[in-house]
C-alpha cells in the first residue's frame, strides 16, 4: 500500500481487533483537501498500473511513468504543487512526494528571488545591507534568470 499513513491506520485497527469487515471503511484524513487527494489517488493507481504492465522491465516503467508525469504537470497549477506536496507528505506517499518536490524545484529553478518569495509566502528578514552584500558576492548567480 503506497499511502503509508493509511496503511498505518489499517495496521492499528487490526492491532486493536476492531472488526472492520466491510470494504467501505471511513478513514479520517483531516489534513488533506479533497482535490489534491483525488490527484494523488489517480497518480497512485496509474503508478501501480504501469508497474503491473511492465512487470520485469524497469526501464519501460520509468519511461511510461515519466510520460504520465509530464502530462500531469501540464494540468496542475504551480500553486497546487505545494498542496500536493503537503498531502503526499501527510499520507507518507514517497514516490509522489519525490515527484512533486522535483516538480516544484523545476518550476522555481530559474526564477528570481522575488518570485520565490511570493511562491512560498516569504519575506526578506535580513538586516540592513546584509542582502545587498550577498547579492554583490554572488552576482554571477543572478545571470540568465527568468523575467518575472
Amino acid at each position, binding site marked *: 500500500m503506497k499511502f503509508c499513513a493509511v496503511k498505518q491506520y489499517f495496521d492499528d485497527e487490526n492491532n486493536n481487533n476492531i472488526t472492520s469487515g466491510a470494504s467501505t471503511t471511513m478513514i479520517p484524513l483531516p489534513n488533506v483537501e479533497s482535490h489534491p487527494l483525488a490527484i494523488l489517488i489517480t497518480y497512485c493507481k496509474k503508478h501501480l498500473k504501469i508497474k503491473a504492465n511492465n512487470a520485469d522491465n524497469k526501464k519501460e516503467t520509468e519511461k511510461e511513468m515519466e510520460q504520465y508525469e509530464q502530462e500531469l504537470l501540464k494540468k496542475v497549477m504551480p*500553486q497546487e504543487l*505545494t*498542496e500536493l*506536496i*503537503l498531502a503526499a*507528505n501527510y499520507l507518507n506517499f514517497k514516490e509522489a*512526494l519525490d515527484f512533486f*518536490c*522535483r516538480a*516544484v*524545484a523545476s518550476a*522555481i*529553478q*530559474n526564477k*528570481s*528571488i*522575488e518570485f*520565490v*518569495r511570493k*511562491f*512560498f*509566502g*516569504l*519575506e*526578506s*528578514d*535580513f538586516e540592513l545591507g546584509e*542582502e545587498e552584500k*550577498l*547579492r554583490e*558576492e*554572488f*552576482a*554571477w*548567480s*543572478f*545571470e540568465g*534568470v527568468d523575467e518575472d
Partner: protein
Amino acid sequence: MMPYIPQELITEILARLPVKSLIRFLCVCKEWYALITDSDFIKLHLKSSIETNRDRTLILNEDEFSPPLRYFSAVQFSKDNQFRKTFEIYKPLQNWVISDYCDGLVCLHKGYEKLEVAIWNPLVRKYRKLPIEPIEEPSSFSSAIRFSHLAFGHDPRNDDYKVLRVTEFYMADSMEFEVKVYSMRSNSWKKIDEQWPNKEICCQKLLALNGDVYWLAADRVVKDLESILAFNLATEKLRLYETPVPPDDDQFTCLDVLGGFLCYIVNDYLNSDVYLMKKNGVESSWTQIFKIKQHVVCRDFEYFRTLMFSTNGKKVLLEEHQECGHTNLIWYDIEKKRCYRVKNRSFPYVFMVATCIGSLLLLDGDNVIDPRQKKNKGKRKRN
C-alpha cells in the same frame, strides 16, 4: 493564502535544485540562508547530485606545455550523457595546475615540488589556499633528486576532505619518503610516521577512492615486481595488493578509477586489457571487463584514461591520448567492441578531464572574481 510548508519539505525541494539556483536563493530570507549553508543539507544535496549527475561538468585541463590561459575550458555533461556546448571557467590562481578532484572540489598546485596547494569549487566560485607545508629532507639525502605526488579525496570515516603529499627522495642506491596529510576540517598538515616499503611510485597519478589512496609501485629489489599500494586516509596505514596479472616486460600498466572501482589497465601495442576490482579491497575480485584491440578498433593511441560508464553500463567513456599528442573523448561499446569519438570542435587539442558535480562545499572560501564579470557589472539588469 499560501499553505505553510514545514522546513523538512522545503529541504526536500531545495535538495533537488542545481547549485546556481541555491546560491541565488541564499538571498531569499534568513531561514533559507541557514538551511542552504547547513552542513547536513550540503551533504544531502551532494548525495542527490551524485545520484542524478546533476551539474556534472568536465573541466578540460590543458597540459603544462600549452600556452598559459586565464580560463579553463569546460563542458556540461548532462545526466543523459549528452555534451552541451563548451564554456570557460576563470582560473582562481593563474599558472596553477589541476592535480586531483573529488565531490565537486578540485585540488590545484603550483611548482613541481607541489608546495603550494589549493582547493577550489568551480561551480560555487570559491577557493582556499592551503597553508604551505615545507618538505623535510631526510638527513644524508641532501643531494637527492626529489619528486612530490599529490592526491585529494574524502575520508568517509571522519567526514573530512584530505590532501596526501608523498615526496620521494632518490639517491643512487637508496630512496626515502616523506608523507604528509592535510585535513580540511583542521586546516592543518600532519606528518605520517608509518614505515614506507622500499617501492618506487611508478604511475603518473595517485588515485583517491572511498577513503583510500592507491598507486602502482615497483619493487627496487625484485625487478619487474609491481604491486598496488593503498594508504587509508582514516587509519593512515598502508596495504599492499597484488595486480590482477603480472605484466610482461613490453607491457606498460596504468591505474585508474572507473564506476567507483579501482581499475588496472595493461597496454601493449596490440591490446589494452582493463580489469576492475569489483569488491573494494578484495584481491580475488579482480575481473577483466573488456579488452580493446588497438589497430582494429581505435586509431593509434598511446594510452587512455577510463572516465566513466554510460548510464546502462554498456559503454565506457575514455580519454584517449594519441601518439601525435591529440586528446579525444571516445565512447567504447563493450559488447559491440566499437569506438565512437565525441565530436566537438571547441575541445582543446590536448587535455585531461577533471569531473565536477553539483556541490556546495567550500561556501566559506575566498571568492573567485572573474574579471569579465566585473566589466559587465554596469550593464547587467539587477534582479
